[in-house]
């Protein structure tokens, strides 16, 4: 059993999600009586392997799910994959996988380019670290779900404006439902991203006090991108609320969710390819290093 679990790699669940995505895409081409079952089976297999992979890392590498950038992205992908599986079972006629699975795969791709090294932590900073990571995770997932609902709203509205009957295998939820989801997730994203940023400040202060990590300056790219994202989400949520009683409200909110997702994507790419002192252990002082060598 241990041999089986330890053999699970990222490729295993990526392959399962890819097959589920291919099944979703085939809805547009042909009808099949077994596709729904195959799609759910592959998504469930992928989620199962994904879960075992995260549990194995937590057990063997002391990598609590939010303790490294790699694990953070994989956990975000896991939450979305779980959401997809639930929606695919509850609404088998809605092609939600066509929108959700690419985001899941994108997050796994981002994980592959991120550091697997857990952030150094003490029991005191671990709580702040978990709060910081959880809020950021919730904000990112909310932005992704909101953008998916926003994109579906625009597609559905386009179809209704063109006065076309729904395409075979491409029946979207109602505009009312999609508008409700995108508006709510925008609010949730603004609140959780703000809380994540505030808890990050607290974590930074705690780390500086204990000398665990390097102090992250206000000019650090991570601080700048997170700050920009929080500012954008707060503005977007405020705009969405302000236009609530206007006939264009749902369309404006749909576009705001898409821009929020673009901001999140840019932020992730900046985080992956930019330089930062976020989560970096402090440099060993030269004198201490000489002492260590002498001791050896």
């Amino acid at each position, binding site marked *: 059993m241990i041999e089986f679990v330890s053999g699970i790699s990222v490729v295993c669940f990526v392959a399962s999600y890819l097959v589920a995505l291919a099944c979703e895409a085939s809805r547009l081409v042909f009808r099949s009586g077994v596709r729904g079952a195959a799609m759910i089976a592959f998504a469930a297999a992928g989620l199962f392997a994904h879960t075992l992979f995260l549990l194995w890392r937590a057990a063997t590498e002391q990598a609590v799910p939010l303790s490294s950038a790699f694990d953070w992205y994989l956990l975000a992908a896991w939450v979305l994959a779980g959401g997809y599986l639930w929606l695919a079972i509850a609404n088998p006629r809605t092609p939600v996988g066509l929108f959700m699975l690419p985001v899941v795969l994108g997050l796994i791709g981002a994980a592959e380019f991120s550091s697997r090294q857990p952030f150094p932590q003490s029991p005191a900073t671990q709580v702040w670290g978990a709060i910081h990571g959880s809020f950021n995770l919730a904000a990112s997932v909310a932005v992704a779900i909101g953008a998916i609902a926003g994109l579906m709203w625009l597609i559905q509205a386009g179809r209704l404006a063109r006065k076309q*009957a729904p395409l075979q295998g491409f029946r979207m939820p109602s505009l*009312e*439902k999609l508008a409700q989801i995108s508006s709510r997730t925008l609010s949730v994203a603004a609140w959780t991203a703000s809380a994540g940023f505030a808890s990050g400040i607290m974590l930074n202060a705690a780390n500086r006090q204990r000398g665990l990590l390097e102090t992250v300056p206000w000019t650090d790219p991570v601080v700048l991108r997170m700050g920009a994202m929080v500012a954008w989400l707060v503005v977007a949520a405020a705009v969405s609320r302000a236009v609530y009683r206007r006939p264009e409200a749902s369309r404006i909110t749909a576009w705001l969710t898409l821009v929020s997702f673009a901001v999140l994507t840019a932020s992730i790419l900046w985080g992956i390819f930019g330089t930062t002192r976020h989560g970096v252990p402090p440099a060993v002082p030269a004198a201490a290093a000489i002492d260590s060598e002498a001791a050896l």
Partner: protein
Amino acid sequence: MTLAFIGGSHRTVPLDLRERLAFSAEQAAEALKRFRLRFPGREGVLLSTCNRVEFYAAGENTAGPPPREQLLAFLAECRGIDVRLLEPVLSGECDEAAVRHLFSVASGLDSMVLGEPQIVSQVKQAWAIAQESQTTGPLTGEMFQAALRTAKRVTSETAIGRERLSIPSVAVADFARGVFERFDDKRVLVIGAGKMAAETLRYLREAGAHDIVLVNRTSVRAEQLAARLGARNGRFENLQAELTSADLVVSTTGATEIVVSLELFQRAEARRDGRPLVVLDLAVPRDFDPRIGSRPGVWLYSIDDLTSACAANRKSRQRELPAAIAIIEEETGRFMGDLHHRSTTPVIEQLRAGWTETGDAELDRLFRRLPTLDATAQTEIRQAFDRYAAKLLHSPLATLRSESHSGPPHGLLDALKRLFDLKD
């Protein structure tokens, strides 16, 4: 001939004659009882819908189903119609063609609206009435079960019945449902009393709508209609206020000019708090100014828009037709193969019985000559004999089954009968 049908549908029988020929459930049961007495040992199922009347009859090879003339006279007699009126409009088929026809009918391929699903329940009902009247048997049983299985395959493996075709159903299911998630918290405003309003409201009620207001220029007529449709009667003079509070409008007046102008709508729009509005303008000429459709948050559909969507759906159904026909051909072939194989059963049973009888006689003689054999040894020898007989029979039986797919294997059966001296 084993299976036969005679009947007519909307394609061949004029409406007035179809109405006279139609059977109610009680009349169908009565007719089937009469059939049982007149044609003992034969099976019969009567399918009568508003679009068709068909009688399916069956009988094993020796008797066969009643001939066409007798079935025709029987139907005419049951409904008190001159047989000469039915002769030119009712057609009949037998065996494979009859099976193919029933499978097509059950799958909705022969319906007035291609792929309509109600026919399946009508076929089930016809079968139930025949069962109660004790006119069913193994042949019609297998045939109707196979027909229902075929219909299920056509429904699940093709999209022939998936797209909606009537304007009210397309208006509600494909458009109004695309905008609103639920209707139980929405206000529906019906302007006018056109024919399609009632049918559209039926779909909306099924979707959960219950807050319905009806306004009409003639208030007496509106009151009557409101009572019939279970709606609240509004005043035509309050149209602007009603538009302000409505979420969905169904408009079907007979007015020759625009009823809701852009100016009137804009006055109502200012008080709507940005709520979306779906307008189903089913009137000809249109009741709503077309410019209203370009206002933000308004989804306006005219009868032409809905007709185009219906036509697109109809084309989509037509595209599925070859796939549905392929399923019907496959199921017909399978059914006929099984039916032909049934005709070989008596010969096979005789052949097997003859071999078993000879084997048992030889074994009894052997066991008498070898009295020292215990029960275990005797059982072993008996089983070996059975296996030997089964292996020898396997090849001819497989050939018979394979030949059955292309028709009754009369040549092989005759050869077997002559070679092994089997009697009919």
